[in-house]
């Protein structure tokens, strides 16, 4: 399977649909341990992003992801704007000039996104952030000969659920300390939706690297 501009658009549009459906849920998660704006911010940012990319014409994946990143940076007020924005900007650099890539190259671009996220958010695995989903998911995709759609979704969900037991070390939730335990991290929850949307592109079940 190759990943092209149309599929990249489909990924973002599917992700936006899931964000809109789960807006209240993400907000509830964020009200428990953050400032309560994650659902609204993500919904506003990705609605704008989808509007931008469905109107735009793109010759390559790099310019598409650049528009996604810049729209998020401009439109989202909380930490999720610069974080998701950085993720897509890093991927856009890795995919500059590419009309379509194989899955291996897509995974390499997402690995660059993960590196960018860790630098921007100064977070590591175990800090109760989106990194707790991103890092194991990227590792899974890097190390498999074939990517199974269901395995990808299940792993993302498991890692999202895993943030419930962690004590927050970053963001507004870190002010709560141990009181953050028992709640799923909102950024991990939206990251699960991002990878579940990607998995839907691989709907035939598995994708050879």
């Amino acid at each position, binding site marked *: 399977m190759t990943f092209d501009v149309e599929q990249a658009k489909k990924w973002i549009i599917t992700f936006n649909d899931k964000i809109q459906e789960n807006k209240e849920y993400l907000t509830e998660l964020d009200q428990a341990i953050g400032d309560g704006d994650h659902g609204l911010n993500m919904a506003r940012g990705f609605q704008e992003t989808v509007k931008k990319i469905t109107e735009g014409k793109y010759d390559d994946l790099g310019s598409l992801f650049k528009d996604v990143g810049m729209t998020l940076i401009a439109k989202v007020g909380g930490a999720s704007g610069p974080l998701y*924005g950085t993720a897509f900007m890093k991927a856009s650099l890795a995919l500059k000039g590419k009309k379509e890539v194989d899955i291996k190259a897509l995974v390499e671009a997402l690995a660059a996104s993960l590196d960018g996220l860790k630098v921007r958010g100064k977070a590591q695995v175990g800090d109760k952030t989106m990194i707790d989903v991103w890092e194991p998911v990227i590792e899974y995709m890097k190390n498999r000969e074939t990517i199974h759609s269901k395995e990808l979704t299940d792993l993302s969900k498991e890692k999202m659920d895993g943030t419930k037991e962690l004590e927050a070390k970053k963001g507004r939730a870190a002010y709560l300390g141990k009181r953050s335990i028992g709640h799923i991290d909102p950024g991990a929850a939206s990251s699960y939706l991002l990878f579940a949307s990607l998995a839907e592109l691989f709907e035939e079940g598995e994708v050879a690297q």
Partner: protein
Amino acid sequence: MKYVSLVLISHSYEIVSGLKKLLNQVQPEVSVAIAGGVEGDIGTNALDIKEAIESVYSEKGVVVLFDLGSALINAEMAIEMLENNENIIIADAPLVEGAYAAVVEAGLGSSIEEVVRAGESAKELVKIND
């Protein structure tokens, strides 16, 4: 420019807008720019912060002060996006007291390092004696 400039960032436009008024009264010579809120809502935005820094850029330096968490992430991103980002420092300081101390120091014609130090020393400020 003779003085170090300040940029104030808050999730709320009203917070930095009020703070700027206060600082202008204390030190009218020091240029102060603000970035607060996102399109009228609560939040911060890297592009607005970048514009604010550019609007008061001084070769002597720009000190950036912020309120909470994601304001820092956006401030760092704004500085990376600037073509000329020499002499811009984000101070690890409480916003109101830090900006007050920084504007007084900047008004004396002090260096950027001295202005940052003044802002950051506000962390140890004792507000009620006895």
